[in-house]
């Protein structure tokens, strides 16, 4: 636990007036307030620092104690006892901001010196919604293809969620009331789960469409035929047209990825043919190819 220079945090000097403190705090609060910086943990951490600095410096009693003991904060408790014995409770004139963060997030330095956030100041008695928690859940492309249930352990509680088919990489779902506890009896925050959908080796996804490359032997490509391919939705029989060129792309309507929360609706599957040249030809085969070559001239 180390000493925190609250004056430095607010960018003011030690002789700053109450008005200077208020101005400095407002300036930072407008930049860093959690409502203006959603999902920005860095801004939230900085905001908590300036909130803590303001909590101390805007309260004359706390500021006096801080100024007097500062780096020797370990003696704060002795000071506190002496102060209680010699003075009546002091009313404060400061203001501290709230938002989607937990007031218990004061630093160890603050807690050690002042014993936690003050009560009865400003809006402290107001009810506030708890902090939103964020979590990341990695699922495979195959898992994202079907609607399925998953049990998550959040803060020692098992939560069973249903993941709808078609969930997108980076998509976030909100579980209402599974976030942090509310302040002063306010409602709980939400749990935001962001999905990371990993790609499969043989198929790529773009939105609701799937892209796949299928190897095709030269003879089927030249003469036409059938090709059975494996897709996320099962096996599909492709009819290969004669004289199919390498790199030919075909579109299979409705054979792509399920559309999120639209049951029975699917994107398309695009198949690109990769024609394989025969290798290790026998003499006979070479002869036949030469014959073919000559007939084409």
């Amino acid at each position, binding site marked *: 636990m180390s000493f925190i220079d609250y004056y430095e945090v607010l960018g003011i000097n030690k002789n700053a007036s109450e008005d200077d403190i208020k101005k400095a705090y*407002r300036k930072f*609060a*407008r930049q860093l*307030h959690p*409502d*203006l910086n*959603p999902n920005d943990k860095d801004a939230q951490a900085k905001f908590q620092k300036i909130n803590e600095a303001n909590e101390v410096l805007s309260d004359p009693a706390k500021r006096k104690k801080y100024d007097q003991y500062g780096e020797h904060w370990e003696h704060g408790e002795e000071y506190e006892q002496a102060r209680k014995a010699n003075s009546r409770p002091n009313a404060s004139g400061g*203001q501290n*901001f*709230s*938002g989607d963060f937990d007031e218990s997030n004061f630093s160890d330095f603050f807690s050690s010196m002042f014993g936690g956030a003050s009560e009865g100041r400003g*809006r402290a*008695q*107001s*009810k*506030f*919604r708890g902090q939103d928690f964020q979590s990341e859940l990695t699922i495979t492309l195959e898992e994202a293809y079907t609607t399925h249930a998953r049990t998550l352990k959040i803060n020692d509680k098992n939560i069973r969620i249903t993941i709808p088919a078609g969930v*997108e*990489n*980076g998509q976030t779902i909100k579980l209402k009331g599974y976030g942090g506890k509310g302040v002063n009896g306010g*409602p709980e925050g939400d749990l935001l789960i962001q999905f990371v959908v990993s*790609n499969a080796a043989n198929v*790529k*996804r*773009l*939105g609701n469409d799937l*892209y796949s490359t299928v190897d095709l032997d030269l003879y089927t490509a030249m003469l036409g035929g059938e090709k059975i391919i494996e897709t996320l939705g099962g096996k599909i029989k492709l009819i290969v047209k004669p004289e199919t060129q390498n790199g030919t792309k075909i579109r299979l309507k409705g054979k792509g990825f399920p559309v999120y929360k639209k049951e029975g609706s699917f994107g398309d599957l695009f198949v690109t043919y990769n024609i394989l040249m025969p290798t290790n030809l026998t003499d006979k085969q070479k002869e036949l190819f030469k014959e073919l070559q000559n007939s084409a001239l």
Partner: protein
Amino acid sequence: MEANEYIPIDFFCKQHGVEVSVISTLHAYGLIEVYRMEEIEYLPLAELADAEKLIRLYDELEINPEGIDVVIHLLKRIKEMQFHIQLLENRLSLYEENA
């Protein structure tokens, strides 16, 4: 109108330590929806979190309603852009993995 889907504005204001006139001002600027039933005004519970955010911007950061309107609009734009960035990253990964 189901009673459990709405919260009386005076109760909401009491809980948050703000004047009812704050809600009226935000409502006048089209930032908040207010429902009136038998002379009592209500806020929809579904929009409670948004209402609390507006109160914080107005009351704590002292941003005026016009400013809040701009802030809310820009936050919405940021969210949309973040979504588009994610989509583009997904699209880019398709080519990066093929390279």
